[in-house]
């Protein structure tokens, strides 16, 4: 039987506001899922800048095909974080999608509930 065991790491959902030192997710190589409004996009460098309030993050989109970038639209990216020598972070995106229409309040509140549930299950399974 063929395996469907793809060794792909899950991108941990994190808000741009949470993604700063000393968060353990602010680490070179961390697999993350992030969400933000597209502020800038350069066709030459394929670097996008997304923002959430006063927090922002650069996204390297060179591996993304079939995704059109519209400034002002909401996007979600999954990829690995790279911390550059000047301590600036760039997410090397593996996948991305436009999420215009996403209810952001519902998303962030639900994310908290999912985290609580994961913690509850971890406590239950350790007893």
């Amino acid at each position, binding site marked *: 039987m*063929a395996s469907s065991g793809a060794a792909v790491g899950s*991108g941990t959902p994190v808000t741009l506001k949470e993604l700063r030192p000393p968060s353990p997710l602010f680490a070179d190589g961390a697999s993350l899922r992030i969400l933000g409004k597209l502020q800038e996009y350069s066709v030459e460098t394929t670097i996008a800048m997304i923002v959430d309030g006063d927090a922002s993050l650069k996204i390297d989109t060179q591996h993304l095909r079939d995704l059109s970038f519209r400034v002002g639209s909401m996007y979600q990216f999954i990829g690995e974080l790279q911390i550059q020598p000047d301590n600036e972070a760039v997410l090397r995106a593996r996948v991305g999608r436009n999420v215009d229409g996403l209810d952001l309040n519902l998303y962030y509140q639900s994310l908290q509930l*999912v985290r609580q549930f994961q913690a509850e*299950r971890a406590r239950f399974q350790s007893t």
Partner: protein
Amino acid sequence: MDKSLSLVHVKLLAFDLLSLAQSPPDTPTFSRDGVSLSRAEVLGVVVYREHKPGRFLKFAVDDGTGCVPCILWLNHATSPYFARQRPQGVRLIADVANGQASLLKLGAVARVRGRITSYRGAVQITASSVAVERDPNAEVLHWLDCLKLARRVYDRP
């Protein structure tokens, strides 16, 4: 109340599905807190795909809590199982499966239903149906469904 859930597709978050116990080993029986399960529904972003036309599509969906490996069989023309069935019906099933495989692009949000199976000790889903979700809120609503069902139905009282 009988808590057998083996005939329904249980909606599970990836981390929950991937931690199911297989009992006894090498059987298609899985359990969560002692409750037997055999089918599941997951929803997440397609982050991996490997297509072998006429054989299978391997893919993985990431729901933010884990990455679920899935396999969609496309071997209807060569499988001995399908050789015993009516060719017209097999062609129809093959067309549906190939159509679903073509929709599963990297970055798409997919709802996958199927049997819980394992390969080399790792839990996976052998897909029986796959749908691509267009609603940007579909994944959040799936999270909330999973939480509600786990607490009200799946968890041991």
